């Protein structure tokens, strides 16, 4: 049976990313630029991807990784991956 997208997806995702970058979940606004505002670099971007994949049991495509530059983008990537998985 297909799994649905968790109701608390936003909060779960914030917590996952915050854990990786050592910040509070509240700091992650949709428009917050991970790189400029939170000091994320290409290495942390991969660590974030690894954590997201493990937590939500999804696979993020290679070309999606550089797109995860703010929380809004991260939500989009995770939702799309969950949708694909649940089809």
């Amino acid at each position, binding site marked *: 049976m297909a799994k649905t997208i968790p109701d608390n997806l936003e909060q779960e995702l914030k917590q996952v990313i915050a854990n990786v970058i050592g910040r509070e979940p509240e700091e992650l606004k949709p428009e917050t630029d991970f790189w400029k505002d939170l000091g994320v670099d*290409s*290495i942390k*971007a*991969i660590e974030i991807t*690894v954590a997201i994949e493990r937590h939500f049991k999804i696979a993020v495509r*290679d*070309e999606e990784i*550089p797109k995860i530059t703010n929380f809004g983008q991260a939500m989009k990537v995770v939702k799309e991956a969950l949708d694909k998985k649940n089809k």
Partner: protein
Amino acid sequence: MSKQNKRIVITGIGPISSIGIGKDAFWNGILKQKPNIKLEKCLVDGELWGEFYTHKIDNFDISKFGIDKDKLNDIKEWKEGEEIVDLNYLIAAVKLALDDSKLKFDSESNDIGLVLAHENLGLMPFGFKISDIAYEMLIGKQKKDLSKKEFFDKFYCKFLKSGYDIQTFADLFHVTRVFNIHNYSLFINNACASGLYALESASQIIKNNQAKAVVVAASDYPDIYKYLWFKQIGIYSPDGKIRPFCKDSNGLVFGDGGVGIVLEDLEYAQRRKASIYAEYLGGGFDLEGWKITVPQIGNTSYQRAILKALDAAEVDKEDVELLCPHGVGSQPIDYYEAKAITDTFGNNSKKPLITTFKPYIGHNLGSSALLETAILLLSLKNNIVPPTLNYDSPDSKFNLSLVKKQLKSELKTVMKICCAFAGFNAASIFRKI
């Protein structure tokens, strides 16, 4: 002698690179520390399509290598008149390596083996051909009322043979035929780590009594297709400078080239009084298998490959005196690599000397690990450690200290490591005899 006790040595090196063709010119180029970087322009119908910096081989001429002209013409005919540069590099590298080894073999038939390595030989001419044909058919001279079926019939028929021919076995056939090699042969593709996989395969061929000697050859000819993709995924240096493990590293730069290396059974080499560069002690291989283009930060696959190599070679990590990492100058890949090195060897004082060669010759992709192994073997033979060029702003987060100035050092045991696309992680160990 039993299979397990066979010792494998290297007796021939035939490098082809932007800093020199042939062992001596190549090594002199390394010592001079003068990379040959050019701005490559790709024109389509006279219009600039793209441009990129690359370590360029000047004046390569396959006819100058003393190779049977009829057989070269046979290849050209098969390729419908096209000169495939990287195939020619492969052939030349095999010839140079065989010449350097001074192996004597029957000109009609011999028992040398061959292992080739390349990522995607023939891709560029195939891509161009498809593009040209599609352009002509869609916009050029064809009737507009062409049905879809008619279009598909005509379109695919135009490149049926070319499409089939990008399979690597055809080029393995061409190179073996040039040298009348009829023994065990193999074509492998493990991305940038292909060369180290090829060395291990060659070693196994000899250990399994399939051949007394095997030539391992690899080449690559980076082109606009690869450049556009590498640029898109953000790992191509816009200023044409590879800066491994530096604060300001901004990606890799391609380099043309190839290399051939001859492996032999030690006893066989000694009987024919061959000059021996080093013994191939063994390799370690691990496939991370996470993504194609990025390594998984935090995964220990690369360290496992290094540890497997130490185990296979029966070498203590303290005995490795010189280490040559992949060193592509991309932050995540460098970080992944630095962590594997530190986790294996410990902190700086315990690490071997570390130097990287891509700033000399560029990133030769499928042939890079083997070409850099050639430099490492020449370093071992000459007891000289070439410094890492462009190492001007070391980044402390990597916890590595690379060789900055040329060193003279009595070397005995050296290691080449590579973390390739798709997670092909590999390590090879060599020892002076």
